[in-house]
């Protein structure tokens, strides 16, 4: 049997979950033996060229590009995993959800203390720039998500065990303490 193919992405996240993935330390060598990485910041493959078994996504959706990316993952991955608080609940970026988008954009581009008064006051609107969503969405509100790994970031042990389980089909064996946070 060929190795399971894994793809990963960070949407509206901070890459902290990916950092936590690297925290599996030397087990990463075992991981390389176990799976093949496809589209991912880990190997910098930009586009899907084949169907993947597992897609792991960090971060929620704050703009149209996130949505496009997420839908692309859903199309190209058999199993989709939401990794970490932002992917599951929106996380820190979702703190803007109670503030009208207009206020957020005006604060960032028109009223911020770091704006150079000589610059033209404009909210960026080039067509190449992703469009901001009305609020930050958790992944499962946009596409079907199969599994959720909680944490900010999820602990390396949790990610490792979950990946191992998905790759080998063995039973998930994680003590409660690994995903209990208070």
């Amino acid at each position, binding site marked *: 049997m060929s190795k399971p193919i894994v793809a990963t992405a960070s949407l509206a996240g901070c890459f902290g979950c990916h950092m936590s993935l690297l925290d599996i330390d030397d087990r990463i060598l075992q991981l390389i033996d176990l799976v093949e990485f496809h589209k991912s910041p880990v190997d910098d493959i930009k586009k899907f060229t084949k169907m993947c078994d597992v897609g792991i996504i960090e971060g929620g959706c704050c703009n149209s590009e996130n949505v*496009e990316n997420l839908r692309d993952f859903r199309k190209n991955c058999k199993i989709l995993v939401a990794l970490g608080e932002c992917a599951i609940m929106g996380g820190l970026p979702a703190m803007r959800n109670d503030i009208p*988008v*207009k206020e957020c954009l005006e604060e960032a581009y028109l009223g911020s203390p770091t704006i150079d008064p000589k610059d033209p006051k404009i909210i960026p*609107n080039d*067509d190449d720039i992703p*469009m901001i969503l009305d609020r930050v969405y958790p992944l499962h509100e946009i*596409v079907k998500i199969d599994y959720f790994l909680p944490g900010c970031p999820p602990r390396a042990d949790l990610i490792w065990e979950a990946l191992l389980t998905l790759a080998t089909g063995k039973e998930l064996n994680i003590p409660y303490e690994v995903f209990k946070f208070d």
Partner: protein
Amino acid sequence: MGNIAEVVSKAVESYQKDPTRLLDVIRDVQDALGQVSDEAIVQIGHLMNLSKVDVEGVVTFYHFFSKSPVGKYTVYLNNSAVAVMMGRGAIAKAFEKEVGCSFGSLSEDGKIGLYDTSCIGMNDQEPAAIINGVVFTNLTEKRVKELVTGMKAGRNVSDMVKDLGDGNNQSELVKSMVKNNIRQRGSVLFAPYESGSALRKAVAGTPEDVINEIKNAELRGRGGAGFPTGMKWDFCRRAQGERHYVVCNADEGEPGTFKDRVILTEIPEMLFEGMAVAGYAVGAAEGILYLRAEYMYLKKFLEKVLDDLRKKNILGKNAGGKTGFDFDVKIQMGAGAYICGEESALIQSAEGKRGEPRNRPPFPVQRGYGGYPTTVNNVETLCAVSRIMVEGGKWFASMGTVQSRGMKLLSVSGDCDKPGIYEVEWGITLEQLLKTVGGSGAQAVVIGGPSGTIVGKEAFGKKVCYQELGTGGSVIVISKKRNLLEIVHNFMEFFIEESCGWCVPCRAGNVIITNKLEKIMAGNGTKTDLAELESWCKIVKGMSRCGLGQTSPNPIATTIANFRSLYEEKLKKVEYETGFDLLKSVQESCKVANRKPKIEGH
């Protein structure tokens, strides 16, 4: 800004800088200035020796306090489910048209503010609004026009009340258009009662005798939870403390409940006497009536009743003629917060703080008001106490069912011919009740308010009592022409609004639940969504800190149980359905940035 300083110092002085009177201070400032600005907050804190945050925390907690101006005239229009059923929508539109601003805002000239408010205890005469403390019921579009014209002309709000209600609503001190709507009188509350007779009997025996009599009556709390009153008093009496307190919970905020309003209007003597009996039983010298802000219009009248009782020596030194038993009652006003019906939150609020529930233990009977042992009892419970003192526990216990003795006041509203107050024996079936109130043929009945149960036809044979269908008094009849899910949605919005925000399961959970409900109502739900909705209900109920969150999912949980098909027929038969619409979600940001939404390829 000399004015602010003057108003604040006058308010603070009139309550002798007593921090437990912070709500009263803030109310005086709010009434005088139409807002409690940052400057006023700083000055209140400075003069009362409280931190700015303490004062600001209280100002922002309560619905009837506001940091921003709410106008010379402030209209609070009830948005409870029954108000909506009775035509609240058209009334709101009429207000908006006449005033020229939308709900949640202030007119351009700053004169009139329009705001929503949770149930104001007038469900039997909706649509209703409170304008500057004055209640206007049975509103029509024509009436709204008159009111707004009057406000624009600068008329005094109380002068705009035309016809007065019945009974004591006509009293010089009340002068309200509220109607009592007492439809059925029973032998406990609305039978003839001789003022003073209960306390006389009580003080003739020992406090233990009184507690035993209440235990013999098997009286249970009438607020909804049904805790045995005698046991509560016993705990309170035995608890160590320099002083003990009796607090009467007159914060009936459960949508659809208005029985306490009628008790307070018609038989307050019986209530205050019940408080004196409680005071004698638990060893308290002071009683506090915590009155919800919505019933402010009754305050002067109740003060007068208290004065009369003092003159008759039912209150005061050697109360009831018992040497050494001193007992008096003061009234503490709330300021608009459903959560303050929860006893520990009520105590916090009565102490002049944010109405957030406390951790228990210690229970209020151990450490309550001011840290002293306190018994918190419902208005109706304390009235029943007076009757039990006169007629005896055995007499009381001969009525009702095994675990629900005596009679119960029901506030009936919604789709029935005769909404109002019914004093019934516990154990009446829903069917009998519906027949009495003229609500046969109902699709559903909400019993116990939103935090209670919503039942359908299959349950109409069940009895109203703690073992079958318990209630604090709220009964809302819903006819077949109503969309039940919309009513459920209204209830959930109520809980979101009224959650104190202290614990996450309640603060965030109710929003999550409501979003799920909306997804299903919009036709975007799947089987998984329904299953998730059910499990969220369990999480919020199981993990919330107080009774609010422990019951807030009930409208959904009980309708899923009793009206499952209403949900199922809305589900899409697919494995997953997103409720997400990309084009819609980028509209706002594109408009602000002045660009055209382009979603091809997404």
